[in-house]
């Protein structure tokens, strides 16, 4: 079993690295389409988001519908930092610090919110996380932040009220969000962050802590009876997950020159959940593959014009049925066993 897990993880790393190498070769030889090239960073970001959510949904067994809220926090925190220090720090160190800040702030929020919220179960937890994501969205939506010679100014009302003095510049402008964030995200950094995320999640899961987390998921009362601290480990999983969600947010914020809260609504939280479930709950590699497939799919369907999202929806349903319906699973197993039997004969 151990060996199998190890092998499995190595395959995941190898696939990511192979993907990276293939893409890099295509980029250097110029044989990559603009679309694909533009998709590379978002793919990494969604994969990170999915893997991190899998820690909560798959391994900790809690349904969170507010993952996008934490990405939002990471994105805003890091983007504000980058905008403020744009002129005073060199690019790379600034971005590295931005990643840390995004992760940290999202993690701190995850921790604070997790304390009360993780007492709830199942669908109640889901709705509270969803609510939390919506609150974040609403608050950032009306947040204005500017800097002038006197320092930073914050307002949750109208930017009109915020009178900026000499050398004033708006950094966050309500619904318009943050524009002109330095575009520091790159495919290479994205891949490194994805590898790091996978590394953290799979190593965590296959450790003492991870065992405690999964045990609590499987049977909370039994877990308590063998002395596991339920709150501590749930909170730990949640906090690590939100921290990594923050990292995904940082990648997003530094990939486009427009950052608004619109992306970070419950639809995105749900979309990430779709990646996790479609890829197989608790299956890290599946999460990544599902994130890639479902992010790329609407782009590949562009040729279908008006029917694009319709077909996307249909494909999603069909994939779900194929992956999850017991009847489909039996069917697949039968085919598989027939196939392997034939091989034996040969």
């Amino acid at each position: 079993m151990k060996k199998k897990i190890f092998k499995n993880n190595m395959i995941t790393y190898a696939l990511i690295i192979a993907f990276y190498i293939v893409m890099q070769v295509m980029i250097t030889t110029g044989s990559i389409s603009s679309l694909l090239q533009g998709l590379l960073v978002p793919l990494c970001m969604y994969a990170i988001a999915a893997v991190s959510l899998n820690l909560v949904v798959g391994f900790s067994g809690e349904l969170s519908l507010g993952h996008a809220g934490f990405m939002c926090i990471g994105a805003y925190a890091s983007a504000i930092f980058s905008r403020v220090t744009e002129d005073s720090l060199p690019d790379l160190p600034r971005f590295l610090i931005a990643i840390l800040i995004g992760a940290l702030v999202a993690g701190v929020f995850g921790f604070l919110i997790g304390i009360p919220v993780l007492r709830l179960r199942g669908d109640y937890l889901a709705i509270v996380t969803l609510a939390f994501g919506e609150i974040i969205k609403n608050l950032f939506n009306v947040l204005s932040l500017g800097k002038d010679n006197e320092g930073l100014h914050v307002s949750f009302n109208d930017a009109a009220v915020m009178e900026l003095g000499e050398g004033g510049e708006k950094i966050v402008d309500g619904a318009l969000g943050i524009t002109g964030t330095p575009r520091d995200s790159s495919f290479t950094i994205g891949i490194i962050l994805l590898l790091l995320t996978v590394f953290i999640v799979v190593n965590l899961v296959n450790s003492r802590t991870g065992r405690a987390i999964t045990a609590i998921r499987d049977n909370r009362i039994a877990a308590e009876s063998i002395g596991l601290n339920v709150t501590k480990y749930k909170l730990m999983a949640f906090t690590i997950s939100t921290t990594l969600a923050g990292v995904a947010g940082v990648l997003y914020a530094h990939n486009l020159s427009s950052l608004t809260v619109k992306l970070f609504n419950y639809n995105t939280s749900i979309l990430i959940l779709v990646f996790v479930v479609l890829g197989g709950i608790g299956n890290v590699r599946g999460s990544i593959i599902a994130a890639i497939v479902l992010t790329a799919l609407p782009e590949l369907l562009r040729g279908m014009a008006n029917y694009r999202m319709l077909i996307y929806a249909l494909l999603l349903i069909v994939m779900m049925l194929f992956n999850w319906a017991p009847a489909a699973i039996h069917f697949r197993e039968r085919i598989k066993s027939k196939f392997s039997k034939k091989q034996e004969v040969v």
Partner: protein
Amino acid sequence: MKMLEVKNLCISFGGLHAVDRFDLSIDKGQLYGLIGPNGAGKTTVFNLLTGVYKPDEGIVKLEGKDITGLKTTEINKAGVARTFQNIRLFKEMTVLDNVKAALHRSYRYQTLTGILRLPAYYKQEKAMDEKALELLEVFDLAGESEVLAGNMPYGKQRKLEIVRALATNPKLLLLDEPAAGMNPQETGELMETIRFVRDNFEVTILLIEHDMKLVSGICEELTVLNFGEELTHGKTTEVLNNPEVIKAYLGE
């Protein structure tokens, strides 16, 4: 000093006095039985002892230390482990991992050590594997260490629960109907194993069981519960011949 001392334990649900003024006292190393008709409150006593329910009244002392009202987790840390009447395994985990989860507190390393795979991780994990297999071996489950716990037959699941409880290195082990769902032959084997555990793991055992062969075969002393109250207690043979016990519980 007594291993376990319970005084005047009470709990009621709504109007029902599920456990009423219950006393119990068990010496170190004893194999003690708790019997009584269905719904008498035996499982509830276990739940009170392990902090699943908080008693309305009463005191629970473990080796003289008051553990009344502590959380389940803390009570386990203090040295009480249990099995459940309706099996509660970590079904999606392997047999080995079920046991390793219970070794959690005995073999420590930091979360970060685990993520970074520092040498301490490998050392402790290896030690855990060895310890877990050793425990599984006692119950003849080592061969199935890689099976998902939920996929095992009923009888083996019961045994695995005992192993898991044992892995927390308890002073007091509470077994709730360990033989339920086992056939007579399996029950016979189980009796041997329970005795072996008591002798070799320096653990005191309190068990609930309806199988009189098992009870009379291994329990040294018994307490009989009836309608939440103690009916009688004493040496096994005496209790089992008590006419009141026969009337209320054994029949014939």
